[in-house]
C-alpha cells in the first residue's frame, strides 16, 4: 500500500544547522497493516509521517501509495488517499464551525467542492449514527460549535472525521499524547476499533512502548532518521517491553540516554 524507496530528508540543508531527519528510508507497508512507530525525540517519526502526507517533498527517493506515485503530489492532493490525526486536538477540527459542519467538511475529503449545500439533510442521520458509535453523546449536539468541546471530545471527533470516508492510509502522530490518561485510553481503543472495522492501513506514532507492542501488527523503531528495528506478526506479539528496550540498546550499540522514552 505504501512504498518508500531511499527516502531522505534534510532540514536547513547546507547550513550549520543541517539536520538529516530521514536517512535512506526503505519501507514497504502492505494493505491492512497497522504499524506502530517508536523512537526517541528527534528520531524522525513525525518527519516520516509528514513526508508521507506531503507536508514537504523528500530531498531524494520516492513514495507510492497504492498504484499512485505521489512523490511530487502536494499535500492537499495526497489527502484523497490519506487521512491524518495530529497530536494537538486543536489542529484537527474547525473551532468556529459546528460539529455537523466539521463532519460535512470531512465527508468531502479529497473530492471536488462546489456550490451544493455544505451540510446536506440526508447526511445528518449518518452523522448521528457515526457519532453514537464514539459514545460521547455528541450525536445530540450536531449544531454546537466545535470550539465548545473538550480536547478529548475534539480528538474523538477528529478520529471520526479522518475515517468518515475510508482513507487508503491513516496517519496518527502521537494523537493521544495531549489527553488525560483516561481519555487517552478511550481514544486509543476507539482508534483500534475503527482501524479493525475498516481494516485500515495505518501508522501510529507513540512514546508508549506497551501501546506500541499491544496495538497494531507491525512495529518499527526509528533512530537518527533510520529504521533500526522492524518486527511484525507473532514475533511482535511475543515481545515484552524489556525485550524492546534490549533491542533498542543492541541496535544502537550504545546505552539508552535519559530521553523521554517512557517505560509504562
Amino acid at each position, binding site marked *: 500500500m505504501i512504498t518508500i524507496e531511499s527516502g531522505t530528508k534534510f532540514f536547513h540543508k547546507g547550513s550549520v544547522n543541517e539536520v538529516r531527519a530521514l536517512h535512506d528510508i526503505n519501507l514497504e507497508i502492505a494493505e491492512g497493516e497497522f504499524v506502530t512507530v517508536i523512537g526517541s525525540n528527534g528520531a524522525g517519526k513525525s518527519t516520516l509521517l509528514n513526508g508521507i502526507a506531503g507536508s514537504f517533498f523528500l530531498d531524494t527517493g520516492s513514495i507510492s501509495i497504492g498504484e499512485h506515485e505521489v512523490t511530487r503530489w502536494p499535500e492537499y492532493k495526497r489527502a484523497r488517499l490519506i487521512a491524518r490525526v495530529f497530536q494537538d486536538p486543536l*489542529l*484537527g477540527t474547525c473551532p468556529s464551525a459546528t460539529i455537523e459542519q466539521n463532519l460535512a467538511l470531512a465527508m468531502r475529503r479529497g473530492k471536488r467542492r462546489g456550490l451544493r449545500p455544505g451540510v446536506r439533510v440526508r447526511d445528518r442521520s449518518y452523522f448521528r449514527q457515526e457519532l453514537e458509535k464514539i459514545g460521547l453523546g455528541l450525536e445530540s449536539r450536531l449544531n454546537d460549535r466545535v470550539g465548545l468541546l473538550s480536547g478529548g471530545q475534539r480528538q474523538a471527533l477528529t478520529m471520526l472525521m479522518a475515517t468518515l470516508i475510508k482513507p487508503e492510509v491513516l496517519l496518527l502522530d502521537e494523537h493521544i499524547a495531549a489527553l488525560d490518561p483516561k481519555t487517552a485510553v478511550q481514544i486509543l481503543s476507539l482508534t483500534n476499533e475503527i482501524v479493525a472495522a475498516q481494516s485500515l492501513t495505518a501508522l501510529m506514532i507513540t512514546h508508549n512502548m506497551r501501546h506500541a507492542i499491544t496495538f497494531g501488527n507491525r512495529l518499527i523503531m526509528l533512530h537518527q532518521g533510520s529504521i533500526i528495528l522492524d518486527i511484525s506478526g507473532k514475533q511482535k506479539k511475543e515481545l515484552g517491553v524489556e525485550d524492546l528496550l534490549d533491542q533498542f540498546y543492541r541496535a544502537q550499540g550504545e546505552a539508552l540516554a535519559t530521553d523521554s522514552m517512557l517505560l509504562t
Partner: protein
Amino acid sequence: MTWYAVLGAVEQGLVYGIMAIGVYLTFRILDFPDLTVDGSLPLGAAISAVAITSGINPYLALLLAIGGGFAAGIVTAILNTKFKILHLLASILTMIALYSVNIRIMGGPNIALLGTPTVFDPVIALGIAPHYAGLLVFGAGALIVSAAIIWFLRTELGQAILATGDNPQMITALGVNTHFIIIIGVGLSNALVALSGALIAQNQGAADVGMGIGTIIAGLASVIVGETIFGTKSMARAIIAAVLGSVVYRLAIALALGLEFGRFSFNPSDLNLITALLVIGALIAPNLKRKMVAK
C-alpha cells in the same frame, strides 16, 4: 441633523455596506488584511463610468465592475500565495498599481456621468423621487448581496473558505488547496468592493481616482461597529451586522460633521481622522473593559 442628511447617511451606509461585506470576507473570514480595496473601489467606479459613457447598459456596467474587482483581488492573492509576499504588502502593491490603472481606464483622474443612464432610471421611471430611488436601489443591492454571500458561505466551497481562515492545516489535510481558496475569497471580496464603487459612481454622477482613499478603514469601522452592536453569533448575523454597522458608521459621521463646539466644527476632510479614532476606540474598548472589570 436634517431628515435629508439622515436619508443620505443611510443611503451611503447601505451602498458602502456592500463594500463592508467584502472587507468582512478578507479581514474576518480569511484572516487576510487586504488593502487592495482602496484601489478596487475606484476601479469599480472607473469601469462602470467608462462603460456607461461608451453606451453600455448600466446594469451590465455593474457586472463589468464586479469582474474588474475580482481580477484585482486575484492579483493580490496570487502575489501572496504563489510568490510568498506578505498579504499586507501584496495588497498595498496592488492598490498602488491600481491608482495608475484607474487613471488609464478613465483617461484622466476623473470622469463625469452627467445625463447618462444609471441603474436608478427604472426606479425613477416608476415615479419614485430620486432621493428615495437611491435608498431603494442600495437597500435592495445590500439585501441581495448579503443573501447571496450567506448562501455561498453555506455551500461546500463556502465552507472550505470558512475553514481555510479558521484552520488551514486541517482543511489542507482534508484535500483543499488553500491557495485556490484564498484566490477565490480575496477575488470575491474585491468584486463586492468594486460593485460598491460602481454604484457610488452612478449615484454621485462621477468616478474619481481619489474616491477610494480610506475605504479599508471605513470597511473595518463598519465591521467592528457592526460586531459590537449587533453581535457575531452566526456567520449570517455577522454579515448583516457589517451592513448595519456601515449604516451606523455613516450616521455617526454625519452627526459628527454636524457638531459645533463654539467656533469649532469638523470639516469633511476630518473624516479620516474621526474614522481612525472610531476604529481605534472600537479595537481597544474590549481590552479596556476587561482591565476595568479585572480591577
